[in-house]
C-alpha cells in the first residue's frame, strides 16, 4: 500500500513537472526578491530618502559597505532589494522590500534569528505583530535600540512594552539593571518566557551556592537542599519561593 502511494505521488509530481515544463513561460521568485528589478545603487535612493542615506554612515550596518567592484550591492539594496522599479515608479507600493513589514530580508544574514523566532517561546515577529525595527535601528547609529552610548539603556527598550517588569521597585533585582538579556533571549528560546535557562541554574549562575557537609546547599546564607528542601521543589521561582524576579515592594529576597 505504501509503495503504491509513493508511485502515485511520484507519477503525479512528474506529470506536473512535464506539463509545466512545456507550457510555462514565466518565472516564480523565492521571497524576498523583486521580479524584474535591477540594482541601481544607493545614490538614487538619496533623491527621496536624503536623511536616511546621509545618516547611514553612522549605522552599524554601514560596516557592510566596502570599496571595490565586488561590494557594489552592499548599500540600501542589500536589504531592500534591487531598486530600479521602485525608482521608476516614484516609490510605488510593492516595488521594494520593506524589512519593517517582513523580517525575511533580515533573516538573509541573521539565520540564527529566523530559527529563534520559530522556537516555542518567541516575540511575535513571524506572526506580524512586531517587526525587527521595533527593537533595532538599521539606518542610524547602533543597530540595537538602547544601550551603549545611546541616551536610552537596553533596559528602557524592553520596558517600553514590558512596563510592569521595568519597575520602579523598592527592592530591585540587580540583574535587571545589568540588562534583561541576562535572563531572557528576546528572539526566542525553547523555554517558557524566553528564558535562557529553565531550571535553577538561571539563578545559581550569579547567586553563588555553597555546598556543605551532609549534602547541604546554602544560598545567600539559607539552607536550600535536602530531599524535602527548597531546591527539590523546583526552580527558584517556579517552586513559588521567589516570585518577584524583576523586583519586590516587600523584601530583598524577592519572595513576592
Amino acid at each position, binding site marked *: 500500500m505504501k509503495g503504491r502511494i509513493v508511485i502515485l505521488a511520484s507519477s503525479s509530481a512528474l506529470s506536473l513537472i512535464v506539463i*509545466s515544463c512545456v*507550457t*510555462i513561460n*514565466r518565472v*516564480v521568485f*523565492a521571497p524576498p*526578491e523583486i*521580479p*524584474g528589478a535591477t540594482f541601481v545603487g544607493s545614490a538614487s535612493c538619496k533623491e527621496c530618502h536624503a536623511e536616511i542615506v546621509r545618516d547611514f554612515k553612522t549605522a552599524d550596518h554601514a*560596516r*557592510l*559597505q566596502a*570599496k*571595490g*567592484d*565586488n*561590494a557594489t550591492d552592499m548599500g540600501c539594496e542589500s536589504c531592500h532589494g534591487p531598486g530600479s522599479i521602485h525608482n521608476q515608479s516614484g516609490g*510605488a507600493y*510593492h516595488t521594494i522590500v520593506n524589512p519593517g513589514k517582513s523580517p525575511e530580508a533580515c533573516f*538573509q*544574514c541573521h*539565520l*540564527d534569528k*529566523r*530559527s529563534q523566532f520559530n*522556537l516555542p517561546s518567541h516575540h511575535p515577529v513571524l506572526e506580524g*505583530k512586531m517587526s525587527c525595527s521595533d527593537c533595532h535601528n538599521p539606518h542610524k547609529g547602533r543597530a540595537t535600540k538602547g544601550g*551603549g*552610548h545611546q541616551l536610552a539603556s537596553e533596559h528602557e527598550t524592553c520596558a517600553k512594552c514590558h512596563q*510592569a517588569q521595568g519597575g*520602579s*521597585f*523598592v527592592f530591585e533585582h*540587580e540583574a535587571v539593571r545589568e540588562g534583561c538579556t541576562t535572563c531572557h533571549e528576546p528572539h526566542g528560546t525553547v*523555554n*517558557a518566557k524566553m528564558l*535562557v535557562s*529553565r*531550571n*535553577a*541554574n538561571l539563578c*545559581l549562575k*550569579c547567586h*553563588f*551556592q555553597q*555546598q556543605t557537609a551532609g549534602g547541604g546547599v546554602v544560598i*545567600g*546564607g539559607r539552607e536550600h537542599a535536602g*530531599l524535602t528542601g527548597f*531546591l*527539590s*521543589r523546583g*526552580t527558584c*521561582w*517556579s*517552586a*513559588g519561593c521567589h516570585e518577584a524576579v524583576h523586583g519586590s*515592594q*516587600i523584601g*530583598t529576597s524577592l519572595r513576592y
Partner: protein
Amino acid sequence: MKTRSQAKIGSRKVLNAGMLAGAWVACVVSVGAAETAPAKVSDSKNASPDDAAIGDRLEYNNWLEMSAGGYFQSGDRAQFQRGRNTRRGAFGGVEDFHWETPIKKRGLFKVDGRAIFDNHDYSLKLEVAHPETGYLRFGYREFRSYYDGSGGFFPRNRQWISLYDESLQVDRGEFWFEGGLTLPERPQFTFRYSHQFRDGKKDSTSWGDSGLIGIAGQRGIVPTFLRLDEKRDIFEADGKHTLGNTDLGLGIRLDWSDINNSRNIRRRPGEALVPPVDHFVTQRDVVETDLFNVHASTETRLNDQLLLTSGYSYTRIDTAVSGSRIYGADYDGVFDPGRTGAGSGFIGLLGDSETDQYVMNLNLMFTPWDDFTIVPSLRVERQDQDARDSFRETAGALGNFVSNTRERGLLDVMQGLEARYTGWRNWSLYARSEWLEGQGTLRELRVATAPIPPSPLPIFRDTDSSRFTQKYAVGANWYPLKRANFAWQYYYKSRENDYTHNTDSTFAGNDRYPAFLRAQDFDTHDVNLRVTLRPCSRVTLVSRYDFQLSTVDTQGGIGPAGIALGKVQSAEMTSHILSQSATWSPLGWLYFQGNITYALDQTDTPAVDLKSAGTYLVLPAQNDYWNGSLAAGFALDDKTDLQAQYNYYRADNFWDNSAASQPYGAGAESHGVTLALIRQITKSLRWTWKYGFFDSRDQTSGGNNNYQAHLVYSSVQYRF
C-alpha cells in the same frame, strides 16, 4: 568546569560536523544541477501571480483582500492556541485593505485596515500628508495573544493538575494620533498622543506547590495565572530646526501609566489535611507612574570630515504603589487568617518612589581620509532613587507592621572608540571598544513593629559598589568575488562588580542578599562567521556559525562556618549555533528554499554535581534544538502557482530527575506542512487557497500538551 554532559556535547559536535558536511555536499550537487538548467532571465516581463506583472503592480495602488478559514484541532487546545498564536475555530474578515487618493498637487490621503473576526485582530490607520506642509495620522490597533496556563508535569506518578480553562489570552491595543508641521526651511514640529492597553489573563511559571506526588515532599507544579489590567497614556512633542550646519532637536515626553495586575496561585489543591493546606493566594500589584522627560540633541557637520553629535536627557519618574497578598477561599478572596498555613502574605501595602535620571552623550565622527573613520564617544548617566513603603505582614494572623526605605544612587561613565577602514578593495574592517566605570550606593532600612513586643531588630544595610566593564570587538567583511562574501566578528566583554558592605545588620541564617555578594566577574567570548555564496544566478547559500562562551566568578560573604569565602567559578555557559540556508531555482518555474539550524547550549553551575535520592538535584540547563524549514514554489500554469512548506522543530533536553526535584528540560517535536494554491484569475483578482497540518508532541508535559490541527483557508485579493 567539568560536567557529565560534556561527553554528550562532544558526540553531538561530531554528529553536527558530519551533518554540516552532508548539507554542503547536497548544496554543491544542487549548484551543479542549477548550472546545467536552462537559463531564464529574472527580468522576464511575466512574474508570479503573487506579484503580478510589473506593469500591473504600478497600475493599481489600492487593494482589498478578504479571507476566511478555520483551524480544526484535537488535543490540547491551550497549547495549540499558544503555539499557533491564533484561536481554534473559524475566522474571517478583511485581511488587508489599502486605499489612497491624491489631494491637490502632491498631497495624499491613505486608509489602511485589517479586521479578522473573531481573532480580535483589528487595525485602522488614516493619514493625510503633504511633503511640504506636514501630516496628520490617526490609528487604532488591537490584537490578541494566546497563552497556555497549565502547570508542570511530575513524571514519577504522572501527576498533572488542571484547575481551570487553561486557554488564556491577553488583548493588546493602542489608539493614537500624531501630527507634524514640516514646512521647508522652517522649524519642524511633531506631536503624538497614544493610549495603550493590555487586558486579559496569561500564564505564570511561578507555580503553586503540591504534595500529591507519590513521594515525600512537595513540587511546584500547580498552575498559576496572571490577570493583567494595564493602561498607559503617552504624549510626545518634538521640535527640530537646522541652523547653519547644525540640526537642533528639543522634545518632551509625558507618560502616565496605571497598572492593576494580580498573580493568582493555588497551593496544595485537593490535599485534605488538618490544618488545611489548600489555599488560594492572590497577590495584587497596583502601580501608578508619572514620567516626565525632556531631551535635547545636536548634530553639527563641522566640515566634510567631522560630525559632532550630542544628546541630553532628564527624566523624572514618580511612582505610587499599593497592593496585597491574600490567602483566601478563592482567587481575589478576602484575607482569611485560618488559611495562611505555611505561607505568609501582606495587606495594606502603600508606598511611593521618586527617580531622577540625567544622561548626556557626545560622539565625534572623524573621517580624516576617505576610507578611514574613527568615532570617540562618551556617555554619562546619573540616577538617584528614593523609595519607601509600609504594609502589615500576615502569617496565621495579623503580624508585624513593616516599613521599608531605600536610597540608591549611581554614576556611570562610559567611553568608547570605534574605527572603520575600507582602504583595501573589497574589504571592510572595523573595531570597537567600550569602557564603563560605575559607582553606586545603596542604603536600605527595614523596621518591623510587632503587635505584641518585643519587635524584631531593624535591618540596616549600607553598600558601596563599583563596576568596570570592558568590551572589545573586531570584525571584517570580505567580498573576494561578486558571488561570494565573508563576514566575521569577535568580541570579548568583561564586567567586574565589587561590593563593599559598610554596614549589614542582617542576622546569620537569614536571607542575606543583597549584602551577601562581595564580588562578581563576568567574562564573555563571542565569535560569529557568515559565508554567502552565489555560485550561479540560481543558487544562494548562506552559512553561519555563532559561538559564545561565558563564565561567572563570584565571591560571597561569610560562609556557614564563619570563614570568609574565596572567589569561585559559579557558572559556565557555552553556546554553538550552526545555521544554513539555501535558495535554488533549478528551473524558471520552480524554486526551493531551505533553512536549518542546530543549536547546542548549556549552562553549568557547581550545583549540577549535587545528588539527592540517588539522582541529580539540579541538572545542567540545556537548550539544544533542531529547527528547519523547506519551501518550494512551482508554477502550475501561466496563472497558477503552487507553494509548499514544511517546518520542523525538535528539542531533546528532557531528563527525568523527579526523584530529587522537578524536571524542566524541553523535550518536544513538531511538524507543520502547508500547501497553497494561488490563482491570478484576472489582472486585478487573485484567489488563494491554503491547507495546513500541524502536529506537536511535548514530552516535558507528559504528552498533556500534545495537539494536532488542520488549517483550511482561502482569500481573495482585488486590486483597483
